[in-house]
């Protein structure tokens, strides 16, 4: 019920596909998706493994509510040891692929080993086989999608693939499904490429059942109504997408700009959600074509955009004239504000290239921003860049480098390392705006204090999706806290981390939490899944997952020393806006956080804590 109770194990070295029963005890303890996939990883992979060795595994995991009528039931995650970070990686994606995998009768796919030659996995319900990838290896995500649809003569086939970036070893390659939804962060696509696995193509016709269908439908209807009536999920997100935040975050002085050297961007309004609605001077059309939902989603925050045909990036290049995935807030920030670029069309183009070639726009933009700072310092020279002027604010630098990373050419090869490795290479590790090797996203912790603790303690490296305290500190959800103070943030971060781990593991989208709390999730899970699912059980499941991820990282060699922030955020005060004069007060939050977690002063979960969560 709700779980398909079946996983597909694919041994790439041997070329075998084997069905095996889902471990239902683990499902009861870790729910699904992020939690359950991570449990399998933790049980089967040595934490010290080289992420790019055949001994690492790559797990595609759905949740019990994936593919049901619950709103936002699209989600699947890819779990592995991250190429970018060396930490546990779990990258979550929407679109239609995850639900299709579930409809084919599978909860999860576990890839192990390495294929001797490039292959892709084809699944048609119970049938699963590895097929040589000769005609798609070397191709972009978009071409791969086109070729596989034509080859299998099935327009309903759902495809998840790596692009050139994943093949070329860009350290932050994504796995992109349905053309522009991505398991984006930590280099999960790099791991896929290292296994010579190009794509997964799936068609499912078996459907998903739930435990108590009538109660489930009744509950789902009630919960959908809450989303529709909430101003964020019912109005803000469908109209402006996550880009509703650009002007808001800039105004509160928390928009990391020019490699986080300042916290406000003069060009913010030009790259905002509002700007995407404005008719362009050139052709009278708006950048935004429409919003789009992922499978089952009644919010529909996704952006579909079209680039001005006369813009320098696409002039005489009709392959980029069609509509495709538009700018989300994080991407508009990384490609825009962080690089100082305010050309909306150029950002949209760079975003298209990220989707087409499969790499993470957050890490790419933040890496380019670091390179721009090094260029302006004279550390990186024209000789390094092949003559491209890497000045902050240069749209040409952005779009040229986006294409070079995508093709694995020129200075793009260096940018493909990510900011940590790039900044170390040029002797300035302090200029990498990363934690545990992963670049932080679009919220400056000097202006939103809780996000400092969020980044420092995130199990997958800096990330906004592990505890989005912006909801409380800026939007007042579920209640308003002061973004400029550190008091109370340790508890807030812990509560958000645990709740988010539970939400992710259900198969639903964390964006619902603008309107829902765990009170709204557990009745849906309880009506769908075997066993009794209460609020307490769900909350504890989240905490268990968080501690399990932490244990993996500690065994991999991370320590409390890694729970920190780039020096800039701790020592260089914000220069303008409401947070002017402030640095992030991590040292005030972290000890309290460890204590609330039941961890030692060294950040190690105590035996009592582990025992109470069933982890010892």
């Amino acid at each position, binding site marked *: 019920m709700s779980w398909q109770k079946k996983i597909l194990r694919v041994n790439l070295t041997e070329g075998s596909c084997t069905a095996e029963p889902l471990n239902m005890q683990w499902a009861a303890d870790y729910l699904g998706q992020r939690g359950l996939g991570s449990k399998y990883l933790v049980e089967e992979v040595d934490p010290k493994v080289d992420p790019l060795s055949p001994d690492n595994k790559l797990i595609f995991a759905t949740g019990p509510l994936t*593919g049901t009528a619950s*709103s936002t039931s699209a989600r699947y995650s890819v779990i592995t040891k991250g190429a970018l970070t060396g930490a546990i990686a779990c990258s979550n994606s929407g679109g239609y692929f995850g639900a299709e995998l579930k409809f084919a009768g599978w909860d999860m796919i576990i890839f192990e080993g390495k294929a001797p030659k490039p292959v892709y996995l084809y699944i048609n319900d119970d049938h699963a086989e590895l097929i040589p990838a000769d005609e798609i290896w070397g191709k972009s995500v978009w071409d791969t999608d086109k070729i596989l649809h034509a080859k299998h003569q099935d327009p309903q086939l759902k495809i998840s693939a790596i692009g050139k970036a994943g093949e070329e070893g860009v350290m932050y390659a994504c796995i992109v499904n349905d053309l522009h939804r991505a398991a984006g962060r930590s280099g999960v696509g790099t791991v896929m490429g290292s296994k010579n696995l190009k794509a997964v193509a799936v068609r499912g016709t078996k459907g998903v*059942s*739930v435990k108590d269908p009538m109660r489930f439908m009744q509950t789902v209807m009630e919960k959908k109504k809450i989303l529709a009536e909430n101003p964020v999920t019912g109005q803000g997100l469908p109209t402006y997408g996550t880009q509703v935040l650009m002007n808001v975050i800039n105004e509160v002085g928390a928009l990391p700009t020019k490699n986080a050297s300042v916290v406000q961007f003069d060009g913010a309004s030009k790259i905002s959600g509002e700007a995407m609605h404005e008719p362009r001077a050139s052709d009278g059309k708006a950048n935004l074509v*429409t919003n789009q*939902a992922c499978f*089952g*989603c*009644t919010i529909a925050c996704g952006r579909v955009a079209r680039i001005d045909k006369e813009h320098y990036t696409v002039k005489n290049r009709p392959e980029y004239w069609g*509509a495709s995935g538009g700018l989300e807030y994080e991407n508009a920030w990384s490609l825009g504000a962080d690089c100082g670029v305010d050309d909306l069309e150029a950002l949209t183009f760079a975003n298209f290239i990220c989707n087409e070639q499969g790499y993470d726009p957050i890490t790419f933009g933040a890496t380019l921003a670091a390179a721009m700072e090094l260029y302006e310092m004279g550390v990186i020279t024209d000789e390094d860049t092949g003559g491209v002027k890497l000045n902050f604010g240069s749209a040409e630098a952005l779009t040229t480098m986006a294409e070079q990373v995508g093709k694995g050419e020129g200075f793009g090869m260096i940018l493909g390392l990510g900011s940590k490795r790039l900044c170390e290479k040029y002797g300035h590790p302090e200029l990498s705006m990363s934690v545990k090797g992963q670049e932080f996203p679009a919220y400056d912790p000097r202006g939103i204090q809780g996000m400092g603790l969020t980044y420092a303690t995130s199990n997958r490296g800096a990330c906004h999706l592990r505890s989005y305290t912006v909801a409380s500190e800026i939007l007042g959800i579920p209640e308003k806290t002061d973004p400029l103070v550190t008091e109370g943030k340790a508890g807030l971060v812990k509560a958000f981390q645990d709740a988010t781990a539970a939400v992710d593991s259900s198969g639903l989208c964390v964006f619902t939490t603008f309107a829902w709390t765990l009170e709204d999730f557990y009745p849906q899970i309880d009506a769908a899944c075997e066993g009794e699912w209460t609020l307490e059980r769900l909350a504890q499941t989240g905490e268990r997952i968080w501690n399990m991820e932490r244990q993996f990282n500690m065994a991999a060699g991370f320590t409390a020393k890694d729970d920190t922030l780039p020096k800039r955020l701790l020592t260089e005060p914000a220069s303008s806006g409401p947070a002017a004069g402030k640095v992030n007060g991590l040292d005030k939050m972290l000890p309290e956080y460890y204590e609330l977690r039941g961890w030692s002063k060294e950040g190690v979960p105590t035996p009592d804590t582990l025992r109470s969560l069933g982890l010892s």
Partner: protein
Amino acid sequence: MQRSLYISPDKCTGCLQCEMACSFEHEGNFNPAKSRIKVFTFHTEGRFVPYTCTQCDEAWCKSACPTEAITLDAATGAKMVNDGLCVGCKVCTIACPFGTINYNTTTGKVMKCDLCGGDPACAKACPTQAITYIDAEGTGYDKMRTWASRTDTQTAAQA
């Protein structure tokens, strides 16, 4: 009053809640592959279009059926497939100009929209009112109202 399904593609976001509601109503589980309504995506245009049977008065499927398995539900106007009579010959799937009646390999029968007995699940599940179930004689009224609102009689009189 007879009602009919009315589809406004410009409101559709491609969420497929309609396909899940349809399969749940007819199959008891969530399975878009068995939905009687399908949403088509035109990616490069950024368009999503739900499509299903329009319940023709003189239905080609009904005329073509050699076993008279397709009958009229007088209350709703729906053309209904009687599974007991359907032999799975698929002639109706050839006759239908719109492709909205299809063969189900699991049952060996054809399947099509039956308006859920007068309370279509797809319309209830649609979060954006892209699918509505309205007076069959007034499906154009919304568009008429939109155009009517653009009429500025005063400007016209002054001109």
